[in-house]
Each structure stands twice: as C-alpha cells, then as structure tokens.
C-alpha cells in the first residue's frame, strides 16, 4: 500500500494532505492509497479524509494529543510494517521533515526529501527537488522495497473527492514515551489567510523603517488585496512581526500567484523562500538591490510614499 501520513490542524485536514493524496494517486503503484490519521480528537478529520483516500487508518489515542517526532516515527513504522507499505508519503512541513528521516532509517528506506515531482519508472521512484537555497533543481531517484518521500507544500494540486466515502479502520499502536518534554508552547495564529496557502502575499523588510511603519504600510495593502502578510528574518528578529510570518530559509516557503516585496533587498536566504512565486513585485529605494534581478514589476523609490499611492490607486 501507499501510506499517506495526514497533516491536520485545528480539527481540520490540512490542504497539504490533499496534495499528498494527489502525489500518491499519480504514482500508479499497486495497493490502496491509505491515509493515516494520528491524534487524540480526530474522528471528524478521519471522516473528511475518507472522502479522498481509498482507506483511512485512525490512530486515536490521548498519547498522540501532541506531535512528537519519536511517537510519530513509532506509529508510522508500525503501520508501514503491518500494512506492508512500499511507499510512505509525508508532508515536507517542519515536523514532517523532522520525523521522516527517523522513519526512513528505522525501515532501512531511502528518503526523497522535500520533493516537487514524483513518478514511478519501472519500480524506481524519480523525483525533483530544489537545492542550493532553491536556486538549483536536482533530479534524484531511489529503488528499494520501501521508500519514504516528503512532499513540498504547494507542489501538487489538491486531490478531488471520491464518489463515495471509503472505509475507516481503528488501529492500535505500541507507542514509546516521548523523551523531548515540551514545557511551553507559543502558537502564533492570525485571522488572515494562511501564509503558505495565500494567493497573494504582501511582505515587508527592514526598508519599511520601523515596526509602526511596517504595520501602517503593509497591513492596509494586505487587507485591500485579501493577502497574507510576510516578513524577512531581520524584521522578525527586530520584533516587528511574529515568527509565523517569516519567509525564507529559516521561515516558510511560499509560492503565491503574486508576491509583493516592500523594502526587501533580497538576501539569498529570503529569496529561497519566495523565488518560485508566479509573479514578483518589488518596491525598494535601492535600484541595485538583488530582489530586482527576479522582479516582474518593480518600482525604485521611497516605500513610504509609494505604498500609500498604490493603495489610493487600488481604491479608484
């Protein structure tokens, strides 16, 4: 079987899970496309998954209330062995990229990491991935009885629903005790559209000037466009914006239809998180800023004057 580890948050199946299911189906490998749901309050999520996967395995236990790399590894490895999985697909989220290497090692499987395409060629899996801070596209392959792959969010279209829901099965797991003890949690949530799922992202850098200027410039523009807000590492480090909004090597990777970079010079670490955006707009006072090398539409000038002028123009 093809085992897909479902990602979910706030009682809902994540869009990334539907993307994993598309990748699983497109492989045309033997066996059911099986979604595994891990958690403590997941019956509604399992019912949702049953509309998309050939079968759903439900591991509902208080022990899985909180994500832990070792618990997730133990659960997935047990299910993969019992179900004789030949392919395991995991989301290339921060957590997925953290536990997937453990799963691969324990199953003695190759790991195709953070891939953007996947196909089976005579039993061997071929994939592409970005490397060198997303500046290079590499083609890789692996052939083994069982292969683990993590799939970059946004690389595959979400799966369409099935004519009728598939069967759900409860599974029992032998779980270890988590060795990493979580003593506190800071969740950064926002009422806006999620950064990684947004169609338009308005992002600001140090060129915005101050925390107050960032808010005054970026928020009204994002509101007007129905966009998510992004920020550079420098802005987050300065405490102007929450970490959840950070785009780049140490933050999120986004590929919206339109990425609007305001006062962002374009360090390679930031570019690696947004250079696959379909259209890039940049406003910066430095004509030599690296961001302009990957810009579709840009303006060289003062962001404090230009952003209000753009907003006024949008309201016309």
């Amino acid at each position: 079987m093809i085992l897909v580890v479902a990602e979910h948050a706030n009682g809902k199946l994540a869009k990334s899970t539907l993307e994993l299911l598309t990748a699983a189906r497109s492989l045309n490998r033997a066996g059911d496309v099986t979604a595994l749901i891990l958690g403590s309050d997941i019956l509604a999520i399992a019912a949702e998954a049953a509309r998309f996967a050939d079968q759903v395995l439900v591991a509902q236990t208080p022990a899985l209330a909180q994500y832990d790399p070792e618990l997730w590894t133990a659960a997935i490895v047990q299910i993969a062995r019992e179900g004789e999985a030949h392919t395991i697909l995991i989301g290339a989220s921060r957590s997925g990229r953290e536990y997937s290497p453990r799963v691969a090692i324990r199953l003695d499987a190759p790991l195709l990491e953070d891939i953007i395409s996947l196909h089976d060629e005579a039993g061997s899996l071929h994939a592409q991935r970005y490397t060198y801070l997303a500046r290079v596209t590499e083609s890789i392959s692996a052939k083994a009885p069982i292969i683990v792959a993590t799939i970059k969010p946004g690389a595959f279209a979400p799966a369409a629903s099935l004519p009728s829901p598939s069967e759900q099965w409860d599974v029992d797991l032998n779980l270890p005790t988590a060795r990493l003890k979580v003593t506190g949690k800071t969740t950064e949530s926002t009422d806006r559209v999620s950064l990684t799922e947004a169609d338009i992202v308005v992002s600001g850098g140090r060129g915005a000037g101050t925390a107050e200027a960032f808010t005054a410039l970026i928020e009204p523009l994002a509101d007007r466009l129905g966009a998510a807000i992004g920020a550079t590492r420098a802005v987050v480090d300065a405490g102007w914006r929450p970490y959840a909004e950070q785009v780049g090597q140490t933050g999120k990777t986004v590929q919206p239809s339109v990425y609007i970079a305001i006062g962002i010079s374009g360090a390679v670490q930031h570019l690696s998180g947004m250079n696959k955006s379909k259209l890039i707009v940049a406003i910066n006072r430095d004509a030599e800023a690296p961001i302009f090398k990957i810009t579709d539409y840009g303006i060289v000038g003062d962001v404090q004057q230009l952003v209000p002028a753009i907003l006024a123009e949008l309201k016309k």
Partner: protein
Amino acid sequence: MRIFTLIRQVLDAEETVRVQNNAVALASSKLVMDTMDEYGVEEALRLREQGAEAEIIAIGVGPARLQDALRTALAMGVDRAIHVETDLALDALALSKVVATLASEESADLILTGGQQADWDSHALGAATAERLNWPQATWTTALALSGRTLTGRHDVDEGSETFTLDLPAVITTQQGLNEPRYPTLPGIMKAKKKETRKETLDRFDVVPTVSFERAEIQTKSRKLRILDGKDPQAAAAELINLLRNEARVIA
C-alpha cells in the same frame, strides 16, 4: 562529556551557483563552513563557557578542502577535529551513518548540527543521526542551556515555538537566532595549528548512498524585469496597478 559539532562545507551564499555537466560546479568557487553549522560550533563553545566540562570535537566528512572549514572550527575554539576524507557526495542518511559510528566510538553525549544544509537544502542529518543512535532530538533550536545532563531550550515548530527539556545524550539542530558565532582571533588561529585533526578514510564505515543523483539544472523562471522609476510616486503607482490589472491580470 563530549560534544560533536558537525561541519559541512558549502558554497558561499554570495557566490553564483553554476552548473556544468549536469552537476553544480564547485571546483573554482569559494566554499565556507555552512552558516547553520557555525551556530553549532558557537553553541558548543558557549555551553562550555557556561560551565559544562566538555571536550568539543569538530566532525567533517568530505573532500580534502573541507580541512579549511575544520581549521576555522579549531580556530574558533574547538579542541580537535576528525576528518573522514572522501570525494563521494553522500546523502544525509548515508552521512548520518558515519557520524553515528564516530559518536559511538568517541562516546559523544551531544551532537550539534545545522537545521538545514545550504547545499542539499536537507533537514535530515540531525534526525537521521539521532535515530541511528536511538537518541532523542530537538530541531531548529533558538535557545539552549545545559544543567547537569539536562538540556533546556526553545525551538521552532510548525506554527510557533516550544520550550523543552531533554536529557543527554541528544542531537540538537541549530539555526539563526541561537547565537552570534564568534570570529576566530589571531591567538585562536595560532593555537589551531597545534590542534589535532585525525584523518580517516570512508571505507571502514560501510556507507552506501541510497539516493541516486541524476542531474542538476538551474531553472531560472524568466522574469519581466519591468522596473519603474518612483520619483513621481503617483505616476509609478498608477503604472504598476495598470500592469497588474491589465497586463498580468492578477488583481481586480
């Protein structure tokens, strides 16, 4: 106790990436210690300065020129280095076997490595090494302290961050924000010349790469590069909105 700090040598972020014969060409490029690994070296030194009695060992697996990055680590204050010399490009899972073997042999208690490699864009080395050793891990750490054999810290997760405690032995992956790596001082550089770098060959580690590399391409998306002069903000704004509405048709 012993702290391993893993050193990878990558293309300097300021250098242009070039592809020749379907592979990234590095022969004539400037290579540096992966920035993410610098945080690991710095953190090991800080844990010792804050009272941990530790020997700090830099571990590198790679070609002869990797010794430059190991020498930088020694000059920063690491005690000694182990260089497993090979020209073979190893994926993270294969590399983790070498690291785990050395960690067992040297009785390491803590392994520090970068959260993401700047060449393979991989996150896997820390977790794969932890799994081989059956150790726990904390990834993407932004704060770390050691008391006895218990680590406390903070790390980034999918949405937001967590504080944690973790008993040694453990693997920690590092990132920007954890610390500000020091520059080697001249006395540090002089001392580094007398420090030991043990050379090893890859043979005895019985490593088989599991992922085949086929080719690398630079697929730069062609951009329109329409850069407007913003001296007249109203005119530039009007032109930009016109382009977005009527040429690209991405906004209403």
